[in-house]
């Protein structure tokens, strides 16, 4: 008899979702789905609010990546206030925002690697559940656990001094930023035991740990839940990695450009969102290729596939090694998201060091204004991938339309494919579903570091479940981990 497996909740991801795996009569995986079952409501909620409130309001979307939403919204509102299309801010404002953003990238990547992903690498897929967490990591490798916490703290402190506070930060305002960095604040990051130099050293150490793991577990890291795909991100106009501003570029699995450095303000000309009746999360795709061929991956792996180079020396060296691993072609290995994420962590640390040594942060004009526009788009590379905010206002300066395409939504189709590949590799022909098999499916999802609350614009906590079903849609087994 054919079967269906349900995993609920999927653990160590940001949010809550549900996985259904269909088995045929021979216990072979016939189809897998990652369902997002929370109602999407934020885009409607924000309608009617004054446009200048958007950068603060949207932070309520998520307690994990409020800074990304804050900055994407601020970039869109910059356009509405006539402050240019991402290139019109004063040097001080742009650099303060960049520091805030790279602090967010740093702390988010560190949290994901050390807190959510490293237990799988240290203990394996079949380890007992009660050691697959940071306490387990601490018992095995205390230095690694402490390093993760201190790096995360550094990034959070950067956010605090640039956004003004941890909750509802107000740093980015329409047309600029609301504060300078003080000399004392700057020096607190440049000196001492936990300085930016220490962060760079620890980033290199984390990379060395991962590369050593890769060397010893090559088959798993290279082949688990892997599949060919296109990749999309913004890049700087000269092709450099730039996580704050740029043009949209997409490449196919062979490396051919399928979106050639287009202006993100025209994203609606290139990107559409499909819907499925079993998920609240939409399925974005490139219009000219259609929903079946136009889907793509975003996030660290995609960004290392789309950019031509990384404009900081240590990360560039790591990038060259990463690229040479696939002979310069796009890397389509799902577990290499972790490798890419740590290269970006190093890059973020290097960028923060450059910015902290830049006197433009200490003084200079903060805000610029111009002729008001009725519509604005802001795009940023959030930790989990390309994040799009789009607002249109009415004659009373109130938001009448908001459209958000968040990173995890952009990765919706790839995450479903990754789940299917993992299920095929671990469950094919099995008559009994074991805990390690369940965790394997979660590991595939976790590589994308999804934030499911963001993806559905959830208004509350969103708890995720694996369900095993037969071909007649009858539930055979439900697993809540």
């Amino acid at each position, binding site marked *: 008899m054919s079967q269906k497996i349900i995993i609920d*909740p*999927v*653990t*160590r*991801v*940001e*949010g*809550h979702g549900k996985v259904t795996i269909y088995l045929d009569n021979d216990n072979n995986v016939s189809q897998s789905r990652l369902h997002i079952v929370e109602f999407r409501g934020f885009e409607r*909620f924000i309608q009617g609010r004054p446009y200048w409130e958007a950068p603060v*309001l949207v*932070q*309520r979307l998520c*307690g*994990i990546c*409020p800074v990304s939403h804050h900055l994407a919204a601020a970039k869109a509102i910059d356009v509405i206030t006539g402050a240019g299309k991402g290139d019109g801010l004063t040097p001080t404002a742009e650099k303060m925002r960049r520091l805030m953003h790279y602090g967010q990238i740093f702390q988010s990547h560190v*949290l994901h690697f050390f*807190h*959510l992903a490293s237990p799988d690498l240290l203990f394996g897929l079949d380890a007992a559940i009660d050691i697959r*967490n*940071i*306490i387990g990591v*601490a*018992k095995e490798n*205390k230095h690694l*656990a*402490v390093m*993760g*916490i*201190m790096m*995360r*703290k550094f990034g*959070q402190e950067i956010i605090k001094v640039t956004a003004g*506070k*941890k*909750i*509802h930060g107000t740093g980015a305002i329409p047309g600029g930023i609301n504060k300078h960095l003080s000399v004392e604040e700057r020096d607190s990051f440049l000196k001492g035991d936990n300085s930016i130099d220490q962060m760079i050293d620890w980033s290199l150490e984390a990379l060395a740990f991962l590369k050593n793991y890769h060397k010893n577990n090559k088959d798993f890291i290279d082949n688990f839940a892997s599949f060919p795909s296109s990749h999309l991100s913004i890049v700087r106009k000269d092709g450099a990695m730039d996580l704050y501003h740029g043009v949209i570029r997409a490449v196919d699995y062979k490396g051919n450009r399928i979106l050639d450095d287009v202006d993100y303000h025209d994203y609606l000309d290139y990107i559409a969102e499909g819907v499925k009746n079993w998920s609240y999360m939409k399925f974005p795709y490139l219009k000219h290729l259609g929903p079946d061929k136009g889907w793509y991956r975003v996030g660290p792996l995609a960004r290392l596939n789309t950019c031509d180079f990384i404009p900081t020396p240590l990360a560039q060296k790591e990038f060259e090694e990463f690229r040479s691993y696939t002979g310069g072609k796009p890397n389509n290995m799902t577990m290499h998201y972790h490798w890419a994420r740590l290269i970006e962590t190093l890059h973020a640390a290097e960028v923060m060091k450059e910015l902290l040594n830049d006197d433009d942060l200490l003084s200079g004009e903060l805000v610029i204004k111009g002729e008001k526009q009725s519509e604005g788009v802001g795009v940023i590379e959030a930790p989990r991938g390309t994040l799009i905010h789009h607002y249109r206002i009415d004659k009373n300066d109130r938001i009448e339309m908001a459209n958000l395409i968040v990173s995890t939504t952009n990765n919706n189709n790839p995450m479903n494919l990754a789940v299917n590949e993992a299920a095929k590799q671990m469950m094919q022909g099995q008559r009994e579903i074991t805990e390690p098999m369940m965790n394997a499916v979660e590991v595939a999802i976790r590589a994308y570091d999804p934030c499911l*609350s963001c993806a559905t614009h959830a*208004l509350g*906590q969103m*708890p*995720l479940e694996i369900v095993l079903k037969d071909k007649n849609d009858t539930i055979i087994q439900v697993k809540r*981990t």
Partner: protein
Amino acid sequence: MNTLIYAYGNPGRMDDGLGSELVNALEKWVLENHKENIEFDCNYQLNIEDAYEISTKDLVIFVDASKEDIQDFVLTKVDENSKMSFTSHEASPGYIYYLSKKLFDRSPETFLLHIKGYKWDFKQGLSNGAKHNLHKTIAYMKIILTEPEKILKLKHNIIQN
């Protein structure tokens, strides 16, 4: 005695902002009254790096809004809890305390102050009932912060107003 008052919750969800409102009020009072060695912090939720932060203190009082059936407010002693949530969206005071002990070899006296809330809609501002509870909690905390050492002598693990 190095003391940290750490509130968590989302002020964009009405009474979930009780903790940050308490911190705002007490921070002002501490400044006006020149109290020393008392620090404050707020966040949407507790995070793993908070383990380091509390490891540098002697006394930590976490503050959270509560949906439980309590009167006004309740202060409870926090015990270690090694269980992590399925997501980093949710870390308990007990888990943060446990991390501090395991990773930094420090076990500050740790309490959780629950303040009763009633409304959790998606907007800013406290309900009238929450405001009432907040004022009572502020008065109680001013007494505690006048002599923080006294909290260590409390006989019971739960102090119900």
